[in-house]
């Protein structure tokens, strides 16, 4: 899919995703070694966006499995279409039981869920398993077969093996420790907050109307907030939101009033806002 690390950066950038060297290198390796990519990091640094960008670059279909507590086999893998099966049984009345039985457990009555969808068919695909840590431990077991051998076993049909391996991205906020077995099958990538310069470029790309000097100030203030000991430090998504807010407010430079009035866009807890206000010398927030 990619010829070099630079190729990854360049082509991701075309889709509007500016990758740090770490991201570009790891994506390149995941493609080259054919391994799934486990991406961890705080919320809002572009883990999900990365999968979307890779799909766009590869002109691949993005298959997404959103994990949540209670997601199970029938949501992740496949399910039999019972209604259709019943319909089929009641429609065909003059055949033998054996014929009907083989018929209702065929492809036609199989409902593919994301994991099965991702390994069937020949078109290129990117499989995004989002917020893997939210799923119960049992689901990880389900993922193991898919991730190591790229195959799924349906008892009535046999094993379905991918003819073309999808590019797999798993994301996690580390709210639950993922199993060692799962980690072993993946390349590991931690996306942290970007370097100042990269973040400035991201902000400029996402908020085109913002001028260079203001973008620089915005990133510096966000950097200062991240260095504070807050309950929830702002991430890239919040930086972009803030830049948009400033643009909407018509601010052409940062001063106390502007920052004080819009700090809520960056910080989501009242005590964080108070703390940051005190540290930045904003009077009476």
């Amino acid at each position, binding site marked *: 899919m990619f010829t070099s*690390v630079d190729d990854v950066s360049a082509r991701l950038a075309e889709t509007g995703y500016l990758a740090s*060297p*770490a991201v570009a*290198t*790891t994506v*390149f*390796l*995941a493609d*080259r*070694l054919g*391994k799934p990519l486990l991406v*961890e*990091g705080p919320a809002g640094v572009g883990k999900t966006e990365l999968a979307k960008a890779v799909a766009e670059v590869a002109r691949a279909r993005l298959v997404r499995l959103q994990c949540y507590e209670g997601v199970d086999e029938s949501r992740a893998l496949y399910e039999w279409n019972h209604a259709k099966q019943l319909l089929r049984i009641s429609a065909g009345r003059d055949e033998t039981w054996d014929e009907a039985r083989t018929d209702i457990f065929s492809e036609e009555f199989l409902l593919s869920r994301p994991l099965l969808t991702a390994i069937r068919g020949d078109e290129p695909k990117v499989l995004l398993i989002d917020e893997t840590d939210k799923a*119960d*431990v049992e689901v990880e077991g389900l993922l193991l077969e898919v991730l190591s051998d790229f195959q799924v076993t349906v008892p009535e049909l046999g094993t379905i093996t991918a003819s073309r391996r999808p590019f797999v991205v798993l994301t996690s906020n*580390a*709210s*639950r*420790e993922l199993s*060692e077995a799962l*980690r*072993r099958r993946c*390349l*590991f*990538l*931690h996306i942290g907050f970007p370097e*100042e310069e990269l973040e400035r470029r991201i902000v400029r790309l996402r908020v085109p109307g913002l001028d260079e000097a203001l973008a*620089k*100030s915005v990133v*510096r*203030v966000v*950097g*200062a907030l991240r*260095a504070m*000991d807050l309950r929830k430090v702002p991430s890239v998504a919040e930086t972009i939101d803030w830049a948009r807010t400033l643009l909407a407010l018509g601010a052409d*430079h*940062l*001063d*106390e009033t*502007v*920052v004080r009035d819009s700090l809520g866009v960056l910080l989501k807890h009242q*005590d964080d806002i108070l703390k940051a206000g005190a540290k*930045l*010398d904003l009077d009476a927030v």
Partner: protein
Amino acid sequence: MSTAERLTSLVGALRAHGVRIGTGETVDAAQAVEALGLADRERLREGLAATLLHGTAQRQVFDPVFDLYFPRGVGAPEETSGDPDDLRERLAKALAANDETLMARLAVEAVDGFGGYGNSPASDGWSSYQTLDRLRPQTLLARVRDDVRGQQGMSGFTDRLLEDELRRRIEAFRALVAAEARRRVAERRGRDEIARRAVAPTTDRVDFLFAGKDRLAELRRTVQPLARKLATRLAARRRRAARGSIDLRRTLRGSLSTGGVPMKPVLRRRRPARPELVLLCDVSGSVSGFSDFTMLLVQALHDQFSKVRVFAFVNRLDEITRLLEHGAADPEGLGARIRAEATLTGWHGSSDYGVALGEFASLYRDALSPRTTVFVLGDARTNMSDPNLPAVREITERARRVYWLNPEARAQWGTGDSAAYEYAESVEMHECRNARQLSALVGRLLPI
């Protein structure tokens, strides 16, 4: 040294630091090296990290070890200046411009110029401490700040951020110097030894008793994720426990309508009682890092228990539950606030377990019930006073479970004024020296 050998000794050094790496990962890493080539060092670093590591915390061990096995350069730099003033000058410029490549080069020069000590082959080496002592980068702060202001003017809101930014850059430079000194020493003494000795352990393996101020701050940051992890584990355990066992009597009674065939198993109902927790923390100077950390963890786990009561003592005991109320406490000043607001000391300032445990057993006996689990946190060093074992026995009789977490290494127990083994006779005592042990213990010992 071939790349393959280099890679395997890198893996060996990482394993020695507790990073679990299988052969499969080493093979992946070799493939990564092949795919990436050796030309770009930072790419190589990321590639190896991606294939060898499984978690974010391991990165802080990985980076210094990588620097040793895949060094930026070999031997001394080509040009060095022997003049500290000249170097300070150039460093000031680099700091002002935030030029990271230049700072890295200056770190190399600085160690070469000012870090060397000794002149016999057996005892000489390179010291980052000495380098930084001669260079004193922190004293450049005011000057660089004025320089930058001079260039850009005092304009704008972001000006007030400048000082902190510069401080962070100086900190980064110090780290660069330390890495360079390690590399130079490793060249002389052998990488394997330095990788084993000079690389700091991951945060969860830092000894509570020996953690410096900055490591404690780091430890505090590990509390949140740790607490969340434990909370999900407890919730899962509770869920499993709630599925419960079969109530035979009611199942059989239900089976009467189906002619004695038990069609519907009836599960035993559980009382949804949340367990209660009592903490007795020694907060005297010697173990304060440990108890601070544990209290933060408990505070974070607060909503898992119906009632948590925390008591602190040095040689007097006082309840500090109110100080730990969620949201109100800021971790920074917690220890100081406890010492300021609670009555913890009587006639002298050293810990006295006997008196404190006695006070607890007599004044707060209402805190104990058959639902309570008690954790005692401390090193059991009583300063030669009476350990008051009857009080401990009384506590164990009234509570459901009592555990003692001791931040000292097991080998130290019972030495000097430690009454650890005496207490361990009536209380289940566990060694708990770092965050990793603590989370394992808490996960195992906490009641469902």
